[in-house]
């Protein structure tokens, strides 16, 4: 329990640091938000009024805290280009991206665990180099290139989905999942290769440890040792890795959404960067960073459940 409290405190501190960094960075570059919202032909009086409304006349730290409290109560500011609250713009896109990330994560876990196990068991076999080479190839193909191929092959040639025509999640959930599945696969493939590689080396490392010899001296076969002892011991590094994967998928989704024409956060982010719509960029960046920090913390908490040694605070 104590560990959880400490970990969550660390989580909050990192979140505050990250949000502060982001706020400060955007505060410096975004120029005059009042001007950006009202346009260039606004009168000085109206600009002044807007500045007061936005609280721009207050000191920097006060602005930061009102932004932060606003952030947690769902008030993310007003978009420059849409003149609408950022929160209402982001919510539907957040849903799409989250769904895609989840699908991708499930694909990664379902595919890499058995593949990684197998590749570890056969690591000294004759075809190890074939597996390694295939893995390196999968890591080498850029996700967006894969996306172009997949959307052409399955979308245009085989017509399993219609590229560019993304169904509304609320109305056609199955259709949306089907559409997102193809994008999720493109994000997943390089990550699967990395996860398999990580699993392979983790399991091999564990199999060389002394306790494996002890277990064999008790009459276990190697496969039993793997099942009863090694898997559990390999689980913690694997979960940490999957936590990082969760973060990397979000990064990968930015490009893949663009190719597949998925109206998610990534696509919105890129558009907002091009439009210099800083409130939107800022909100998206902070949300994505929180997502990454959160998945890392969840991974740590699960790891701690499995490995009681971590509860002592062995890791800084």
């Amino acid at each position, binding site marked *: 329990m104590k560990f959880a409290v400490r970990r969550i405190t660390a989580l909050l501190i990192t979140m505050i640091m990250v949000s502060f960094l982001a706020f400060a960075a955007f505060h410096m570059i975004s120029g005059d938000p009042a001007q950006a919202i009202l346009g260039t032909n606004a009168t000085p009086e109206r600009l002044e009024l807007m500045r007061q409304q936005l609280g721009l006349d207050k000191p920097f730290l006060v602005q930061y805290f009102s932004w932060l409290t606003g952030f947690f109560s769902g008030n993310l500011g007003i978009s420059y280009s849409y003149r609408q609250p950022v929160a209402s713009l982001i919510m539907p896109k957040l849903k799409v991206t989250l769904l895609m990330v989840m699908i991708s994560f499930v694909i990664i876990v379902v595919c890499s665990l058995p593949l990684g196990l197998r590749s570890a068991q056969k690591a000294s076999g004759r075809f190890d180099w074939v597996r390694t080479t295939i893995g390196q190839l999968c890591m080498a193909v850029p996700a967006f290139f894969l996306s172009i191929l997949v959307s052409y092959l399955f979308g245009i040639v085989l017509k399993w989905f219609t590229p560019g025509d993304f169904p509304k999640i609320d109305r056609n959930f199955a259709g949306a999942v089907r559409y997102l599945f193809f994008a999720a696969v493109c994000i997943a493939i390089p990550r699967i290769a990395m996860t398999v590689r990580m699993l392979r080396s983790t399991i091999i490392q564990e199999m060389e440890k*002394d*306790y494996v010899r002890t277990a*064999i001296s008790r*009459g*276990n076969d190697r496969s039993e040792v793997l099942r009863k002892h090694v898997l*559990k011991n390999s689980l913690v590094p694997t979960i940490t890795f999957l936590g990082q994967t969760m973060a990397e998928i979000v990064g990968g989704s930015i490009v893949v959404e663009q190719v597949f024409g998925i109206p998610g956060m990534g696509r919105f982010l890129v558009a907002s960067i091009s439009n210099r719509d800083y409130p939107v960029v800022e909100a998206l960046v902070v949300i994505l960073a929180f997502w990454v920090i959160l998945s890392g913390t969840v991974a740590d908490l699960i790891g701690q459940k499995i490995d009681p040694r971590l509860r*002592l605070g062995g890791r800084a």
Partner: protein
Amino acid sequence: MLEVRDLHVKFHNRDREAVAGVSFTIREGEILGLVGESGSGKSVTAMSIAGLLPRKKCDYRGDVLVDGEDMLHADRSFLRKVQGSKIGVVFQEPMSAMDPLMKVGKQVEEVLEIHTDMKPEERKKRAIEALTDVELPDPEAVYDKYPHELSGGMLQRSMIAAAIVSRPGLLLLDEPTTALDVTIQAQILKLLEKLNKEYGMSMLFISHNLNVVRKLCKRVAVMQKGVIVEEGLTDDVFFRPQHPYTQHLIACIPARVKVIAKKNAESRMPTELTEGTVLSVNAETDVKGGERYE
């Protein structure tokens, strides 16, 4: 009980044989000490007996008979039945030899889980009995601890408990006390002696420390570079070493320890002590200080 005949083991990535023709026997209820410095092949010998040689990475020949049955060339399914049930093994580093994520009790009863159809409650009862046997305080609590929650000495006792829980006829002890400090070492030796007497277990006790071996074993074999250079009753080897290597090993033992040894030997077999005096050069120094070794 155990018979090793002309055992040879050579690892593919080494030029020299790790074990180059070793033969010895251990009778029912006997403790044999196997002494030698690291790399002399004593651990490899033990691994061959326990069926733990990495067979793909070495060449091996000779015979290893446990209760008359061959271990060296037996197939895996046979070894499986013998490992843990007829042969128990205790390794040097208790901390790394235990699965860090499995409770100590579960590791102790793992042998029973593999080799018997006991019910879980029965297994737990036996595991706690074994933990009691190795004189752990509060065995029920230890049963539910993780390895990192116990001290080195307690862990090694648990390892011994795991090795004896199925009452194997043969216990292989590969430097079981080396990683422990001296007082714990002495306790473990006493414990092993008790187990030997109580259950009539045969033991192969491996150590690089001749002095430790002397306390537990009536017979000792000295290994160097893969061969046994000297074998005999412990007191004979200790007081009248024939081979230069054994003499060298003995010269490394502090003199005051030898005095105590001599005193003990006197009380045990008073007829054989005359030549023992040769060893005690500084015989009078600090006999008291030496007593903590006992």
